[in-house]
């Protein structure tokens, strides 16, 4: 783009080499930003790809799937498809997750298939044919013996398992001992990944282990996209029993992709935030190097170097350093990505679907994207300083004071553009598009950072008399020197402010959320004891438990009341996403459930439910586009066919991000042939100790049912643990952004102070002690930290407000109450002060060592 003569290139290189510290800071700024982007990208991509592979391995080449409600699909339908419709490319599947106790409780999908029907569908399984006899024997056993499974060779090797070994699998309240009848040797990596989470079983075994006798999870079909295919679809439709429907295969999978999109977007936004902070860093460094080289640039101009070439030199320098930064950033990003994958996977698993990522993919695209963004951001940040460099007159006499004067003149412009950017951003929040909203958040942050020079000016001018009176000369000097180097200080302050306000915003958001979840738990779970099967996913409880378990609980002395609930996925026609339906016979909230809309008081809602109405969670309504208003209905596919349920209330619910539809058990049993329950709640009679009753229940279950019996308190705690886990990634990213900001301010302050070496030399020569100089430096930096904290308070509050009321609501559909607690601000202020103080220590130490004579010699 800009050709640079060799001589200039050398000038540029020398400049870089002469200031290794600044170069390092520049590189660090770029590297950290890039690393964050790459790490998050890798984490997201790996989790999604793992899910994609998993879906692929499940769906195979199927184009359509026949699915049913809680009781699945009757197996007779499969026979009908083969015998009556003569369909050949059709395969039955019985599958569910179970926990492998010997494999550290890892969830494995038991995937039950009919090997005779599989060939057209999932060609990904491959028996190691080292010994064909052994294979035939193992296949015979696989088909005829109970509890036989096939397992991937790699997975077996990982846990030191061999053919013939047994595995204890826990499915809901029961354990099964399964025997590995053979090992699968996947032919390629994708297959290998798909198989990592699976135990392949004959369909008969899967039915027996997963309690699916007579039923199938789904029926897979390959139907060509031709007129004949259409006709076949119509013939299949015609014989589908009530409660069963045919869907395009993978529809659920893509729905899952949409669900996690919001989650991914927020992560990406957070990683971009790190880059924004990094850009401040870059801007600072480039400005500094330009300012320092003013005399040289002036000389160069005098020698006939054009403005264009000067501009090019600065930009090239930035690009060069950026490339180095990008290289480090990519390496760090890949390393950090491996860590981030673990955190992201945990969150995704607890919120959305079970996913195990064993292979961290490093997509070239992510690296390329990170590199491009890094270089572009660096060049962008360097543009303004580069332009400024071109304004250096050939005489080279322009002094810092001239620049500062110019900057002072620019303050109103900056402030006005800040106001403008903030205004536009706030307007953008009105658009209900998450991407636009995230851009608006950036806008708000950047807009407010443009207020920094003005606020700094005003605050420091106002503070000067006061601090002068309090601390004396140093108190007079420090604010002035901040104002004097406004071009530098304000940028450092802005960078710190951004980081701190993000901390305030995110802590306030997470804190409010946590607070609401706690309140909701207290409101809705008022039973003393809660019993559930050890589940695999944190937010769902859909493993079937026999209803007689509730009778056992009822019979325990000290149990006053028992309530049962059943959670199942059901189908909402024309909605690819399943609907989580929860049937309850007694409300654990005892009437204190909170609603965002309801037909009348709680009694009215409960009796409407008794007559066949449902309650819909707010999140569900928002995500599926059901207006939160009177007169709404929801149509579900039941075992009696489609049925439209009136909605009696929209409830506040944090049990999962996809929301739930709740109805009463007797209504559920009317529409679904599913006698099972999922969880049990028990109330303890007065005069009995909850812990005693829990022990009694555990004793009654002993050996027969493996169920988790928890006190109300334990349950609430475990929910909060999951909550904290979910936000672990947010906290981690937040922390990283702070680190970037810290490095930013460190670099800015260090540069600033180093730049003033001569000034300090003069001060020392005039009798200022080392100690005084040290104190002056620290005073200056902590003042800057204070300014950052002051601006961060309103900005952080606005961010929190936006995150709570706009981003969260639009991403997930939860209405949260913004709870602003002083500790969020205190914490942020502390971070700002500590960061700035720490950042001041190194320069202060350096300055303290200045030998006045040497410093002045340059003069």
């Amino acid at each position, binding site marked *: 783009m800009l050709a640079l003569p060799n001589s200039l290139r050398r000038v540029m290189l020398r400049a870089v080499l002469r200031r290794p510290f600044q170069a390092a800071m520049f590189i660090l700024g770029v590297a950290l930003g890039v690393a964050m982007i790459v790490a998050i990208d890798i984490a997201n991509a790996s989790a999604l790809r793992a899910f994609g592979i998993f879906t692929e391995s499940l769906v195979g080449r199927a184009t359509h799937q026949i699915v049913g409600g809680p009781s699945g699909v009757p*197996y*007779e339908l*499969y*026979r009908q498809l*083969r*015998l*009556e419709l*003569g369909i*050949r490319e059709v395969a039955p599947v019985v599958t569910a997750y179970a926990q492998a106790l010997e494999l550290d409780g890892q969830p494995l999908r038991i995937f039950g*298939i*009919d*090997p*005779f*029907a*599989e*060939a057209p569908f*999932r*060609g*990904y*399984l*491959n*028996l190691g*044919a080292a010994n*064909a*006899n052994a*294979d*035939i024997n193992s*296949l*015979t056993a696989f*088909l*005829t*013996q*109970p509890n036989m499974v*096939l397992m991937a060779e790699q997975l077996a090797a990982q846990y030191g398992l061999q053919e013939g070994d047994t595995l204890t699998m826990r499915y809901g309240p029961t354990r099964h001992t399964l025997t590995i009848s053979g090992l*699968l040797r996947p*032919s390629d990596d994708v297959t290998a990944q798909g198989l990592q989470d699976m135990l*392949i079983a*004959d*369909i*008969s*075994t899967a*039915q*027996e282990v997963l309690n699916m*006798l*007579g039923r199938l999870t789904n029926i897979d079909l390959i139907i060509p996209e031709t007129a004949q295919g259409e006709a076949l679809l119509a013939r299949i439709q015609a014989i589908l029993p009530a409660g069963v429907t045919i869907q395009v295969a993978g529809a659920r999978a893509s729905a899952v992709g949409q669900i996690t999109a919001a989650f991914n977007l927020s992560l990406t936004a957070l990683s971009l935030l790190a880059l924004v902070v990094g850009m401040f860093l870059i801007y600072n460094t480039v400005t500094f190097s330009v300012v320092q080289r003013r005399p040289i640039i002036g000389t160069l101009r005098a020698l006939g170097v054009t403005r264009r070439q000067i501009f090019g030199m600065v930009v090239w320098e930035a690009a060069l350093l950026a490339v180095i930064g990008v290289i480090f950033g990519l390496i760090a990003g890949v390393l950090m990505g491996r860590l981030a994958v673990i955190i992201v996977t945990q969150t995704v698993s607890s919120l959305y679907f079970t996913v195990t990522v064993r292979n961290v993919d490093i997509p070239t695209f992510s690296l390329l994207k990170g590199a491009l963004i890094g270089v572009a951001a660096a060049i962008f940040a360097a543009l303004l300083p580069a332009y400024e460099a071109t304004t250096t007159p050939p005489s080279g006499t322009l002094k810092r004071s001239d620049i500062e004067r110019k900057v002072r003149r620019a303050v109103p412009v900056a402030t006005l553009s800040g106001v403008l950017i903030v205004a536009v951003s706030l307007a953008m929040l009105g658009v209900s598009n998450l991407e636009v909203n995230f851009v608006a958040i950036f806008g708000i942050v950047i807009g407010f950072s443009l207020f920094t020079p003005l606020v700094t000016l005003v605050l420091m001018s106002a503070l000067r008399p006061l601090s002068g009176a309090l601390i004396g000369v140093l108190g007079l000097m420090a604010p002035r020197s901040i104002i004097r180097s406004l071009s530098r200080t304000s940028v450092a302050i802005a960078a710190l402010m951004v980081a701190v306000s993000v901390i305030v915003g995110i802590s306030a958001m997470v804190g409010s959320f946590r607070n609401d979840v706690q309140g909701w738990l207290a409101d809705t779970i008022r039973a003393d004891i809660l019993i559930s099967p050890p589940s695999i996913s944190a937010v769902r409880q859909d493993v079937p438990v026999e209803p007689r378990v509730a009778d056992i609980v009822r019979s325990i002395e000290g149990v006053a009341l028992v309530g049962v609930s059943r959670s199942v996925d059901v189908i909402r026609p024309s909605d690819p996403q399943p609907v989580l339906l929860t049937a309850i016979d007694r409300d654990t909230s005892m009437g204190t459930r909170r609603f965002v809309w309801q037909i009348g008081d709680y009694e009215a809602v409960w009796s409407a439910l008794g007559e066949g109405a449902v309650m819909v969670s707010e999140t569900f309504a928002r995500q599926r586009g059901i207006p939160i208003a009177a007169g709404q209905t929801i149509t579900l596919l039941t075992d009696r066919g489609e049925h439209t349920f009136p909605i009696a209330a929209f409830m506040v619910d944090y049990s999962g991000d996809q929301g739930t539809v709740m109805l009463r058990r007797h209504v559920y049993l009317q529409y679904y042939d599913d006698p099972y329950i999922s969880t049990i709640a028990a109330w303890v009679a007065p005069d009995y100790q909850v812990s005693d009753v829990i022990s009694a229940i555990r004793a009654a279950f002993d050996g027969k049912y493996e169920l988790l019996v928890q006190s109300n308190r334990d349950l609430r705690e475990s929910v909060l643990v999951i909550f904290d886990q979910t936000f672990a990634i947010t906290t981690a990213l937040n922390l990283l952004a702070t680190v970037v900001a810290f490095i930013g301010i460190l670099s800015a302050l260090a540069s600033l102070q180093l730049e003033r070496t001569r000034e300090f030399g003069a001060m020392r020569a005039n009798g200022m002690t080392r100690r005084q100089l040290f104190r002056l430096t620290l005073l200056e930096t902590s003042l800057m930290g204070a300014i950052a904290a002051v601006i961060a308070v309103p900005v952080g509050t606005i961010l929190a407000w936006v995150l709570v009321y706009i981003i969260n609501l639009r991403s997930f559909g939860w209405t949260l109450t913004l709870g602003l607690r002083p500790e969020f601000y205190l914490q942020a202020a502390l971070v700002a002060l500590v960061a700035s103080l720490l950042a001041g220590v190194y320069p202060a130490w350096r300055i303290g060592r200045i030998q006045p004579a040497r410093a002045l010699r340059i003069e």
Partner: protein
Amino acid sequence: MTRRGILTAIIVISALGAALIGVSGLRGQAQPEFSADVVAALSGGNIEGFARVTGVKEFSFPRDHGAHPEYQTEWWYNTANVQTADGRRFGLKFTIFRRALTPTMPERQSEWATNQVYFADFAIADIAADKFYFKERFARGAAGLAGAQTEPFAKIWIEDWSITFDQDGQGYHLRAAEGEIGMDVRLRMSKPIVFHGDRGFSVKNKGEGNASYYYSFTRSLLEGTITVRGEQFKVSGTAWFDHEYSTSVLGEDALGWDWFSIQLDDNREIMLYQIRLRDGGVEPTSKGTFVNVDGSTLFLSMARGDYTITPLGTWTSPRTGAIYPHGWRLTVKAPDGLLELEVQPFMRDQELNTTTAYYEGAARVTGTQNGVPISGVAYVELTGYNTQTRESYSR
């Protein structure tokens, strides 16, 4: 040794192989290996625990048309030479096989659990067009997908392919369709059931229990519709039906066999075969059955010189590279004089390149008896010519 023992064994193994391949996605590649080693395995102790055919039994129908799951292998074999009203010829072949994977089955709750595997071949030879079509399928004998019932009438089925007996037991109905071919034909038995060997007790070799129960409908009159590439043909003709079950063991020295079912136009039928041995000789127990016009039968022994089989030429399969004999001169010592016959397949390529490749072809029969010209139709089955299969025997 009965003619289809080896074939069945191979196909059974292949069925397992196919199931395995269903699991492995390595269709075709891994299969010969399975055939090989499992045939070897079958000549070992795999029959342990299965019921054995040890003596003459009283057949009872329709019950015995059904499955005998305590025996390891069983098949229902249909071949037919048919033609349209204007004389366009077709060959039909439809067999359902059953194989028990284990002699007993642990108690299982799932209706899908079974030790019975069913598989089937269906082929049509479009002689005028010189085109041969074949299909095969496998299914578990459970969940209603495949099986055999005898009440209220006998029916053997694998998914939507079926052999259904009429209530009176004198006729049956064959239905099979897939892709470009299909058939829906009704048959009436024109002759009494022929029980091979000693009243259906067909000794295979000298070992105790090495025998099968084996009966045939040697001439069934067929009427119905077949479909070839979307075109329907009303056809009629004569069909042959075999039902045989056993817990058989293969001779280690067997290489393959040549089997003939002949329907002469004068209403007589002949079944005969020879098992070829690895040393180039012929299994001495190779035998046949001669069926008179009235349905009475005559035992034919190859060792005794009751019949001879002389190949006249060869045909090389372009797909498998197997070199099959093509055209034979047969002599059969009938009670009323020596039959001198020439059997020529109606078309060359009638090889079923299914999981295990073999030849099953419709053929024209010409010849003389006592100087009088005679003619008829036949089906010829040739196994053990596929190089890969043959190699597998020698292991």
